[in-house]
């Protein structure tokens, strides 16, 4: 079985169940899988004299210590948070000059993100089926960043790696210094004794590598933690402030060429004809590359390449399907009205609850397609050598999918992937289109590295959007404002089947897409009868993972609607939620923290408004209160208060930053975000038509984190879903107007 077909199989079962992985595992062979090193605890000496003590730690003779973090640093702080885990056990100052934190260039089994694929914490992955699933994912080297899983996946593994390295280094130091290990004191990147003997890690690492790694290690007592739980400065900040941080667009290998791309203006269109004119004669032009659905110009300078590609005369064939966002939304609404559910789950008798209730509320909500708009446009730098070995430098959320994308372009014998820092990602860099284009361009200029950089317009129009969707929310209330029944029906094109068809070459059943209902399944509000249903459709346009994914719309639908229910019942929105949350639940605790921290005191009025929202996603519960003042249709965002239970906090300043940033991301979408697709073409292009929230519009955001000793939850995405519902609730509280369709700019609101 080839690696590529295995990849497909794993992704097929990835969104299903561990049982499916086991079936795939049996296909590969249990004997082979038993040899897959999913623990990464071994040691090895590398050609440069440095030593790997576990998969995560490399020590050079000059005492440079490299911590491998197999997750893309795209702003979320994962290089810092995960280095803290190793640093804690190994006694390192991770901000010291001799510490490097980098993405590994090998897709080792130990780096595979089975937490994401199998949707389970490593601490709970036990039993024979899990044994198989973990090894299948590991054998494929599924190195991937997404689903706010980096810390969840690494919390135990990377502390263990640090502890194993510490143990091996301790033994080696004792032998080196000729003292009993109990007399050794661990200092920063070395050991000392009371009588002044010293040895650095770099001096004993080779000796340590000859020892067998301990089968079990004792992790540090949390009471003695020096790094975990502390606001450790980010390891990447100095370079980012100096301007020396290397993003994908900043790599400058020897002899680098630059390519500009022109993609088909309509999704699915192909190049019909290309007239080069005298473009090849222009200064600096190296090659013109015609692909099936794009044309690129390779030059010695990005601007010369861009000017040249703009000068080409390209005609495009008509696509087989003309996707259209307005038609999609109309279709989703019609299917909702026809109750064309593809899935339905019920508890209690919802229809009876409706019939017997004092009051019924039934509203339709709508959200649009959204582009990611990472500040660094999509790009990849590829060197395709004459011997068909390939080197890729790219900010990607999956080095494994990058490799597979290059293999899909041509007869690559070996693909080395070097993951750079990313100027934002938000799910867009989980795609492989920017890798495929860059690989195709590089194949046309074999032997020279070429950086294919998308323009901002190409990036915005490049698809992989957060899908548009529609929801019908229904509630039945009794005379005391208690929920008799609550129903949520979500109509959306299937994201997972679109992603997999595009990136993994798989077809899957849209009606089994858990993304459509995520954040709705298991909603926390108590009601005698509950119904959730989905209207899944095929996607007419390429759709993909966008920060907080299904939660980005479902958090809005549920929480905006709960605010409506509270108003209909004449009950304060915080009190209404309190009435319907299980006592002592995480949601209830976050709500109480939020109420206290925001000084919540009921409704607004007279142009002032407050809105509240509460949503669980990615193993964290986040609540937010937005304070606004509204004058006519001008909204001023006065202040935001956030309370969050993210499990154990590894670095409070990073979590605060993610809550703030995630919330601003959600606000931007709620206020301005919309991609219109007309006759197969995305209408928005640059920041003039696809607006971003700016500093003058952004509110101060205060973050309150709940103390917890539970295993850590995700933090990169959970700040996003609460922004829109809290905002529309605040505007309702100030004006009495209900906004059920995003973005609110379309209803005439501006930000003052």
């Amino acid at each position: 079985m080839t690696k590529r077909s295995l990849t497909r199989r794993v992704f097929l079962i990835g969104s299903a169940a561990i049982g499916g992985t086991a079936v795939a595992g049996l296909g590969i062979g249990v004997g082979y899988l038993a040899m897959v090193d999913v623990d990464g605890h071994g040691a090895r000496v590398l050609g440069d004299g440095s030593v790997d003590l576990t998969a995560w730690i490399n020590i050079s003779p000059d005492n440079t210590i490299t911590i491998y973090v197999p997750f893309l640093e795209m702003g979320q702080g994962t290089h810092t948070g995960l280095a803290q885990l190793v640093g804690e056990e190994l006694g390192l100052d991770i901000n010291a000059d001799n510490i490097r934190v980098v993405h590994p260039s090998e897709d080792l089994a130990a780096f595979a993100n089975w937490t994401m694929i199998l949707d389970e914490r490593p601490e709970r992955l036990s039993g024979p089926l899990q044994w198989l699933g973990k090894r299948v994912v590991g054998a494929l080297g599924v190195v991937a960043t997404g689903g706010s899983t980096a810390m969840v996946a690494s919390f135990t593994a990377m502390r263990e790696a640090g502890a194993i390295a510490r143990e091996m280094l301790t033994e080696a130091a004792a032998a080196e210094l000729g003292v009993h290990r109990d007399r050794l004191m661990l200092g920063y990147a070395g050991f000392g004794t009371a009588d002044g003997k010293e040895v650095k890690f770099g001096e004993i690492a080779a000796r340590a590598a000859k020892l067998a790694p301990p089968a079990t290690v004792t992790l540090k007592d949390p009471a003695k933690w020096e790094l975990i739980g502390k606001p450790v400065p980010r390891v990447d900040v100095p370079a980012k402030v100096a301007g020396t941080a290397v993003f994908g667009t900043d790599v400058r290998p020897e002899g680098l060429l630059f390519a500009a791309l022109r993609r088909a203006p309509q999704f699915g269109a192909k190049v019909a004809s290309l007239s080069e004119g005298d473009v090849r004669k222009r200064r600096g032009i190296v090659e013109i590359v015609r692909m099936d659905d794009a044309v690129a110009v390779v030059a010695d300078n990005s601007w010369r390449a861009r000017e040249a590609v703009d000068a080409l005369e390209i005609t495009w064939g008509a696509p087989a399907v003309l996707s259209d966002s307005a038609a999609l939304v109309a279709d989703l609404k019609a299917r909702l009205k026809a109750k064309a559910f593809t899935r339905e789950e019920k508890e209690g008798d919802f229809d009876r609850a409706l019939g017997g209730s004092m009051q019924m509320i039934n509203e339709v909500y709508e959200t649009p397609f959204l582009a990611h708009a990472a500040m660094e446009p999509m790009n990849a730098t590829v060197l395709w050598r004459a011997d068909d070995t390939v080197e890729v430098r790219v900010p990607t959320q999956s080095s494994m999918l990058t490799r597979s994308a290059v293999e899909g372009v041509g007869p690559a014998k070996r693909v080395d992937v070097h993951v750079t820092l990313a100027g934002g990602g938000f799910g867009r860099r989980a795609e492989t289109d920017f890798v495929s284009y860059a690989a195709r361009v590089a194949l046309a200029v074999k032997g020279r590295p070429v950086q294919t950089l998308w323009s901002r317009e190409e990036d915005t129009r490049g698809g992989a959007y957060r899908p548009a969707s529609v929801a019908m929310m229904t509630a039945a209330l009794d005379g005391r404002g208690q929920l008799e029944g609550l129903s949520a029906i979500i109509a959306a094109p299937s994201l997972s089947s679109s992603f997999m068809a595009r990136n993994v070459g798989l077809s899957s059943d849209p009606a089994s897409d858990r993304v459509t209902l995520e954040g709705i399944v298991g909603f926390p509000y108590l009601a005698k009868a509950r119904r959730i249903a989905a209207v899944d459709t095929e996607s007419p346009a390429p759709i993909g993972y966008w920060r907080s994914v299904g939660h980005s719309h479902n958090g809005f639908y549920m929480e905006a609607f709960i605010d409506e229910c509270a108003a209909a019942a004449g009950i304060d929105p915080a009190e209404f939620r309190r009435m319907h949350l299980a006592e002592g639940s995480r949601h209830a605790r976050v709500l109480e923290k939020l109420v206290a921290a925001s000084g919540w005191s009921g409704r607004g009025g007279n142009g002032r408004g407050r809105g509240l929202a509460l949503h669980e996603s990615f193993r964290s519960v986040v609540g937010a209160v937005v304070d606004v003042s509204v004058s006519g249709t001008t909204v001023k965002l006065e202040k935001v208060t956030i309370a969050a239970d993210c499990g154990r906090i590894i670095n409070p300043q990073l979590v605060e930053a993610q809550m703030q940033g995630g919330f601003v991301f959600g606000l931007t979408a709620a206020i301005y975000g919309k991609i219109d697709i007309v006759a197969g073409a995305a209408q928005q292009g640059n920041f003039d038509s696809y607006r971003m929230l700016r500093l003058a519009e952004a509110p101060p955001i205060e973050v309150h984190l709940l103390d917890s000793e539970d295993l850590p939850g995700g933090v990169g995405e959970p700040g996003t879903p609460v922004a829109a519902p809290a905002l529309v609730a605040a505007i309702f509280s100030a004006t009495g107007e209900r906004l059920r369709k995003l973005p609110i700019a379309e209803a005439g609101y501006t930000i003052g």
Partner: protein
Amino acid sequence: MISLTINGTRHELDVEGEMPLLWVLRDELGLTGTKYSCGIGRCGACTVLVDGEAKRACTIVLEDVADSEVTTIEGLAPAGTWTAVQEAWIAEQVPQCGYCQPGLIVAATRLLAANPRPSDAEIDAAIDNICRCGTYDRVRRAIHRAAEMQAASAPPAVPAPAAPASEGAPQ
């Protein structure tokens, strides 16, 4: 040949006069701290100083800056040292992805040169760079911190009590 000074070094460039300064910096000179993001002067990721003024390097062309002095993020402080703005940026841990931050730091540097103690409203009016990670709150705090640091290290703005009021120290 077009000549200009970048970060104190004079360059003679055999480059088209209509090439935007951004691409001269990034692809001709390898100064990659100045970033491309929008290409239409809307986002500020490519902000540089041209004769002390903040400019968007994607929308000014080389011939327009001939004989000018250009300062990029790499040239704000000698290697291994920080300006007050950079120090404040580190203290407040502003960057997330960091891609827009060189432009923000250059813009803040220009703001503080023109207005050593800006109010929130003045910051709002002056800084319109886009940060997709939403670091705005910390950007504001860092600008205030840098202003305080600069005020603390500058000669006293208020004269000593014994000195005549009209002879205040230069600011």
